[in-house]
Every structure is written in structure tokens, then in C-alpha cells.
């Protein structure tokens, strides 16, 4: 993904030393990063040691927020929901993206069409799409129930979103539908960077699509798959919109992922400290995955396989 910048940055000319142009260029971004990124991140860390309801004077608690968090069932339940959500969506998002990328890559016609089609959901507003999914899964005349009742698979309409056993799957399906296309593009990009002769030669020797995919393309995709997989995990750990819009965390908190809990605690219950502590737990998780990704990419660069 992010290749290291090649070579040393080159300074332009001695005249630049007289007037601090670099700061004219860099200052807006620097101020922005400090005010909108670093200040809030540090403040959030500080807040996680306080009790605060946004109105009264904050009360210092030390590590109590974290202690209470680790002892609360709700937190662990949110972790379990998040884990289920992340693992299910990541596996599906990655698996389908690999399948589609391999097949589209070996397609002679219609490549551009398939790319445009599969990527479309990624740019579509989540709110609009969530309304459609809300209808698809609706117990009363929703499409899924209509189809399954018509086929005789179920006898009575099922409330897919209100059933703890199916609601998570429903949210996952929306998340997967929306993001597969992005992973698909990233994997396609790697496939297109591989020498075309490999596939041509294999085709001449009569290899099937399946053989070409598993024996030539897939082994060369492994580094990309790792990177895209970890990116997907980071992305799904942060999922909020789908949950908020489809199930509001319900039923029985089956879909209440961590980010949803943070939102609820902070802005509905006004437990700012607890929400911050929770956010930092999530942050540690995400930074951990990011570091793993970074370390793997660095090791790969060292081995000379880009």
C-alpha cells in the first residue's frame, strides 16, 4: 500500500532559506493536526481518569474507570459482539474480494464494467443503503421474508433485525456488501502489477482458471492479502453507522459493538470518563493491529518482496 518514499527529499534552491516558505506551506496542516488530532487524543487519555458528565466539575478517579470497565459484563459483551462482528465481516469481505478479483482478472471482456459495479456500494451513502436493507429484512413484507415464505423455507415471517441470532448477520451483510468492492480494488491492483505473461503461458499450456488462480496468482497475492486483511480488521473495528442505523445495538445488545457503546456512553448517558476509557481500549487494539501491519510490511521490504 504505502510505499516508502523513494530516496531523500530534495531541497529546491538556496533562495528558499531566506523566506520560511516551508512553514507557510506546512503550517495549516500542522495546526490542524495539533488541534484536531493530537489535542483531542491527549485530552481523551486524560478524561479517561475522570468522572465527568459534561456539566459539573470533573472528578479525578485514577484508574477506576478502567477497573470498572474490566469488571463490567456490558463491556465484555461489547467485546464479544465486536469480535464476532469483526471476524465475520473481515473473513467475508476478504474472501469475496479475493474470489472476485481472481475471476475478474482472468476475464477477457467486461473488466471495467465489473470493477465499476463492485466498487459502487463503497461510495453510496450508508444511511440510504441502510434504509433499503431495513426493508429487505423487515418482518412485515420485507423482501427476504417474501422470498423465503414463497419458497416454503419458513412458515412464519421472521424479524431478522429483532432476533438476537440473526441481527448480527444482518448488520454484517450490510457492512460486507458495502466494503467488498474496496478490498476487491486493492487486490486487483496487485494482480494487475504481476507480469501478464505468467497467465498467458499457463493458458497456452491448458491450465484451468482454478489452477491458474491457486497455483500462480494466489501465492503472489499473499503479502497483499495480509495487508488488506489487517486494514479490513482496523476498518471493521471502527464500524458504527451500520449498527446505529439498522439495530441501534439491539436486540439484547447482540449488535452493540464497542464504537456504539462509546457513542452511547458519551453522548446519551454523558459518562464521558467511561467512554474515554473504552475508546482507549479500542485505540490500543487498533494501534496494535496497525503496528503488526507496519511490521509485516517492513519485514517484507527488507526481504525485497514488495
Amino acid at each position: 500500500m504505502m510505499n516508502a518514499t523513494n530516496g531523500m527529499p530534495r531541497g529546491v534552491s538556496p533562495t528558499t532559506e531566506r523566506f520560511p516558505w516551508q512553514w507557510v506551506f506546512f503550517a495549516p496542516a500542522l495546526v490542524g493536526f495539533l488541534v484536531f488530532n493530537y489535542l483531542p487524543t491527549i485530552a481523551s487519555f486524560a478524561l479517561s481518569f475522570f468522572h465527568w458528565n459534561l456539566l459539573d466539575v470533573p472528578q479525578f478517579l485514577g484508574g477506576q474507570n478502567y477497573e470498572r470497565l474490566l469488571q463490567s459484563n456490558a463491556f465484555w459483551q461489547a467485546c464479544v459482539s465486536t469480535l464476532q462482528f469483526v471476524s465475520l465481516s473481515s473473513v467475508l469481505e476478504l474472501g469475496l474480494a479475493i474470489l472476485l478479483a481472481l475471476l475478474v482478472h482472468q476475464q477477457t471482456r467486461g473488466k471495467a464494467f465489473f470493477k465499476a459495479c463492485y466498487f459502487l456500494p463503497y461510495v453510496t451513502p450508508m444511511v440510504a443503503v441502510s434504509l433499503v436493507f431495513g426493508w429487505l429484512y423487515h418482518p412485515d413484507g420485507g423482501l427476504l421474508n417474501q422470498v423465503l415464505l414463497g419458497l416454503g423455507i419458513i412458515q412464519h415471517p421472521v424479524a431478522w433485525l429483532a432476533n438476537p441470532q440473526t441481527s448480527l448477520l444482518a448488520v454484517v451483510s450490510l457492512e460486507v456488501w458495502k466494503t467488498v468492492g474496496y478490498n476487491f480494488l486493492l487486490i486487483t491492483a496487485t494482480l494487475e502489477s504481476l507480469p501478464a505473461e505468467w497467465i498467458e503461458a499457463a493458458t497456452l499450456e491448458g491450465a484451468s482458471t482454478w489452477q491458474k488462480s491457486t497455483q500462480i496468482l494466489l501465492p503472489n497475492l499473499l503479502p497483499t492479502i495480509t495487508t488488506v486483511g489487517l486494514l479490513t480488521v482496523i476498518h471493521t473495528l471502527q464500524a458504527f453507522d451500520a449498527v446505529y442505523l439498522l439495530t441501534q445495538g439491539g436486540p439484547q445488545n447482540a449488535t452493540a459493538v464497542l464504537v456504539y457503546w462509546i457513542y452511547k456512553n458519551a453522548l446519551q448517558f454523558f459518562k464521558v470518563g467511561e467512554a474515554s476509557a473504552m475508546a482507549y481500549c479500542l485505540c490500543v487494539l487498533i494501534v496494535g493491529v496497525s503496528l503488526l501491519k507496519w511490521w509485516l510490511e517492513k519485514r517484507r521490504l527488507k526481504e525485497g518482496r514488495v
Partner: protein
Amino acid sequence: MNQFIHSLRKLPQPAILIGFVLLTLLPFWAMLVLAFSPFDLSQPLSLLPPHWTAENFQLVHQTIPLAVYACNSFAIAILTTLGSVYVSATAGYALARLPFRYKALWQGLVWLTLMIPPQVNIVPLFILMKQAHLLNTHWAIILPACISGVMVVLYQQWFTSQPVALEESAQLEGASVWQTFWHICFPLSQGLTITLGLLAFINAWNGFLWPLIVLQEDKLKTLPLALAMLKESFRDATNWPLLMAAACLSVLPIILLYAVGQKLLINGLSQGGIKE
């Protein structure tokens, strides 16, 4: 599972691909069809309505001030696009070309932001906006959205990869750093700028969580917020056709933009390997 893979192997590949195309397009088709379906509680909505009607679109305009929400969304998306491109291009150029003391530090500062999940910042950012009296203004959304670590890094990589010859000759002829950037380097980055600009616009247009938090006043809300509100407003029976008509209208600008910029967006994304 093995059996599944086995049967997949036998299927002709275009069939699989087209199957997934249909799955991908199904929600769009459903949105469109429902938007043109008559609202009738006595029979379930289907993907092939008995007759088509455009009255839902009129009804949307009578129910909510859609034009106001659309204007809000447009204002936010356009200002965010312009702002983030300006801030990121200049910062990327500075890091790629201009001399800095402690460059590694500034570089690291930008890179580090890529790792911090935005959720951590939500509460303090909300307090910050409150203190700055920016709550219930569009600036609360636009200003933070103009600052993007990913965009700075991508611009920096792009400018670093370009040859310096052109800039050197421009400077020999007496062009200032700003003139060199604005008249030579920035126009050359057109491809990247369009890709990043499109993405910034789309992200701003689709944004939900942050606008939900900072915009409480009705007349300031964006289209996604209005849609969510409209859905909440139905208590017993949801008027799906009305909702879908509103959804269609909120998706339309993005679809049009995608139709025009799809090729650039997809090529740019697959070449640059943009994350997020």
C-alpha cells in the same frame, strides 16, 4: 465447504461474476422500484410494482425541506473538498521539497495520525467545538475534515516521485516557491488531486456519526441526517415508498459523480493504493 468449492469450480466464471453483480445492484434496484411504488398497506411491496408512480417524490418535498438539506450537504462537501486538497497538497509539497529542520519529527507527526482511530477523539472534539462556539455550525464538520493524514502522505509521495528539473529551472528564472508550486507542481498532480478530491467529496457527503453529534438544529442538518430522521418519524407503519424516494434523491448526486469520475477514481485508487 469442500463440496461448495467443488461446485464453484464447475460454474462458468462469468456466471459467478454476474451473480455478484446482481447481488450488488439488488439494493439499488429495490430503492428505485420502491420509490416509484404506490403506498398501499394492504399489499406487500414487490420488486415489480403493479404500476409506477412519481407521487412519492412530490410527497417528499411536502414532508421535509429536502432542498435545504441538500444545500447543507453540498456546502459541507464542497468546502471540505477544497479545504482538504489545499491543506494536504501544500503540506505534502513542503515535506517533499522544502528544507525543514527536524523533518523526521514533522513527518512522524503526520504518519502517527494514521494510526489513531477517530473514535478516540470524538468526545474531546465535541467539547472543543462547544468551547469554540462552533456546535451547530457547518464549520464543526468542515474544519476537522480538512485535515487528513492520508492525503498529506499521498501528496508527499507523489511530489517526491516527480523529477526536480522543471522546478529548478523555474526558480532560476526567478519564480518564488509559491509560484513554482501553484503554476507548475500542483497542476501536474491533477490526476491525484481529482482522485483525492472525489473521495473527499464522497466522504463528506456520506458522513453520518460526526454530523449527528454536532448538528442539532434542524435547518443545518445534512441529507443523511434528514433521512435517518425521516425514518424515525414513522411510528407504526413505515411509508417505505416515501423513504426510498428521499433515499434516491440523496444518492443521486453521488451516482452522477460516480458515473462521470468512476474511471479516474478506480484507476487512481488502484495505482496509488489509497487506504481508508
